[in-house]
């Protein structure tokens, strides 16, 4: 079949396409089968559909989180940034995903415990329970929802890059061009609908194993074909020191100079603090079956960071290999550099395996993100504001439908948007989501902050971050939102806008807390108690929040 396709349509890599379709079909079947995996008595609750029954152990969580966090962004955008602009734009992903784990080690087990006790499904659920403020909870929910949307779209860009290099999607009309992507997403939407979080959990096994194989083969095999690692770095240094970034007008970066230290460090720190504010990261964490699952994972997930670093370096291997990432429209598109490198250097069948790894790598996070966004809508908008007496069954139904709608929006988003901006859109979402850090993480430790002060800090951070990002203009085209670093006030160096906005957010929250306390502004009701933050599997769920557990008689 593959030979036939190749013969009929020049430009289409038939063997690679056949392998890609094979893996896609396998994964789709696994996705539908997942509904029967660890079969629950009923799928009709968010605990089952949206959190996989809160039952995943260390290894399933490792695959699930790895599949969730290391997305198409990993496989396409990071090496693309390395190839085009160098270390500051691309390699910061390595320190980012290293310091990520000590950070989440510290607070995620507390979030797991309190969510276990109170049945929280989303970060905004916790914020509402802790602060007693529906407004603050809504702010957290909307931010999570908004930040997740471009992230889902980014996954589509990953699939699109693969399809384009294989030679599919070049038809003149709209239908022929976008149909493969449309079909892939429709199938994804259907098995997510039926199987919930179990589907990406199963598929993550396939995805992660494929990607480990592909990257290990790539980093052993490819450098030897282009003259060894020493030559790769020399070629990268040569390109980076002789070219400039047209968007910023600044030279590209082989190794960051003193002027870029702050940018590199703040990009890593800000991204690391932001990642587990995203609803999809929290979804994967809360699906774990015990408090310490996430801590154990903090020690073993860095394996993926190692992989990510190698993958980033493939962007520089492509420089040495002279890869020409030209799209079907004849224009240079940096997003295509890794798929193109694979197609140029690997035998067709293995290129197909590599493409499958990237495409499936996009499906897993897209599924989890749409589930997380749907849960957020259901719990914190639908149930909180529209239908407070919704049953768990209705919640699950609304969530399932929302997951379809969310994917539809992402599809429109990606088909109408300039794709080369995928990474910057994701970073804009990162600026927003980091503004929920105080409400979520500070509240895990203290109720000192006043709920209104946290809300005000969030609002100021959101506005500042958005305006500052808008003001980063592309020097070549004059377009706004051209990057995520800007001059930091006080420090006077370039830094990640999210971190600056976060600092302003915290200052506003602290100052207003002092003011509001002095004015004796009313506190919200805290439905949690300190012991909740240390609960583990087997500890009972709080049954009714209205009847505080402290009102029941303790056993002698």
């Amino acid at each position, binding site marked *: 079949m593959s030979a036939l396709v190749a013969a009929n349509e020049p430009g289409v890599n038939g063997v690679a396409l056949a392998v890609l379709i094979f893996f896609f079909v396998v994964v789709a079947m696994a996705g539908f089968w997942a509904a029967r995996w660890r079969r629950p008595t009923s799928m009709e609750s968010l605990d089952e559909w949206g959190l996989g029954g809160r039952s995943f152990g260390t290894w399933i969580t490792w695959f699930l989180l790895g599949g969730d966090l290391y997305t198409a962004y990993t496989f396409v955008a990071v090496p693309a940034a390395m190839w085009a602009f160098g270390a500051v734009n691309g390699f910061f992903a390595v*320190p980012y995903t290293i310091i990520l*784990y*000590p950070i989440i080690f510290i607070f995620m087990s507390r979030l797991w415990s309190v969510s276990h006790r109170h049945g929280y499904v989303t970060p905004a659920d916790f914020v509402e329970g802790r602060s007693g403020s529906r407004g603050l909870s809504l702010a957290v929910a909307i931010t999570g929802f908004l930040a997740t949307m471009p992230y889902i779209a980014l996954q589509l860009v990953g699939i699109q890059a693969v399809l384009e290099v294989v030679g599919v999607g070049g038809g003149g009309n709209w239908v022929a061009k976008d149909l493969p992507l449309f079909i892939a997403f429709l199938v994804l939407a259907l098995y997510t609908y039926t199987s919930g979080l179990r589907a990406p959990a199963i598929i993550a096994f396939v995805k992660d194993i494929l990607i480990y194989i592909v990257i290990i083969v790539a980093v052993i095999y490819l450098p030897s074909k282009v003259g060894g*690692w020493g030559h790769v*770095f020399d070629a990268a240094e040569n390109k980076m020191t002789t070219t400039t970034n047209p968007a910023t007008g600044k030279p590209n970066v082989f190794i960051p100079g003193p002027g870029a230290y702050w940018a590199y460090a703040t990009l890593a720190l800000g991204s690391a603090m932001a990642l587990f504010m995203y609803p999809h990261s929290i979804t994967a964490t809360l699906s774990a079956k015990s408090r310490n699952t996430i801590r154990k994972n903090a020690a073993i997930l860095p394996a993926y*960071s190692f992989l990510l670093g190698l993958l980033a*370096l493939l962007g520089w291997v492509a420089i040495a290999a002279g890869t020409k990432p030209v799209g079907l429209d004849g224009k240079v598109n940096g997003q295509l550099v890794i798929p193109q490198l694979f197609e140029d250097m690997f035998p067709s069948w293995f290129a197909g395996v590599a493409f499958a790894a990237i495409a499936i790598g996009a499906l897993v996070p897209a599924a989890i993100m749409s589930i997380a966004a749907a849960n957020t809508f259901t719990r914190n908008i639908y149930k909180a504001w529209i239908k407070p007496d919704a049953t768990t069954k209705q919640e699950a139904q609304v969530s399932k439908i929302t997951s379809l709608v969310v994917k539809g929006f992402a599809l429109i988003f990606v088909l109408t948007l300039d794709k080369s901006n995928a990474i910057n859109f994701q970073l804009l979402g990162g600026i927003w989501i980091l503004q929920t850090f105080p409400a979520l993480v500070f509240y895990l430790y203290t109720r000192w902050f006043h709920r209104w002060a946290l809300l005000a800090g969030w609002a100021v951070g959101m506005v500042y971050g958005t305006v500052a990002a808008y003001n980063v203009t592309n020097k070549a085209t004059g377009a706004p939102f051209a990057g995520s670093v800007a001059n930091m006030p006080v420090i006077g160096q370039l830094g990640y806008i999210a971190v600056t906005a976060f600092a302003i957010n915290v200052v506003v929250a602290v100052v207003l807390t002092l003011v509001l306390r002095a004015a004796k502004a009313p506190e919200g009701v805290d439905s949690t108690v300190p*012991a909740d933050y*240390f609960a583990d599997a087997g500890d009972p769920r709080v049954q009714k929040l209205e009847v505080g557990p402290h009102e029941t008689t303790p056993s002698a």
Partner: protein
Amino acid sequence: MSTTPHRHKAPPANKGLLAVAGVLLSLPIIALLLVGTYAKDEPRLGGFPFFIWYQFLWVAITSALTYTAYRIVLKARPHVPMTPEGDAFLDSEAASGTGDDGAPEGEVR
């Protein structure tokens, strides 16, 4: 606020051990944020610039530090199960024993 104050408290912890875990966890964050200490080409290792292989090295170091911190926090604050009603801890013996590293500084019921 409540007739059953012990119900609200966190399980006791050995604060010293928790602090040690905190230090282990902060090491990678500090090291990697000091970009100036590693943003250089030489010495290369197998063709890899120092900037690259140093950060790869921290992947392994961080994994080891995080695992060590995990073992430490398990010892520093052992889990104390709740009663089926969730209104008290089950075992006061477990709550007061935090190993042989001195008396727990957390409150003991």
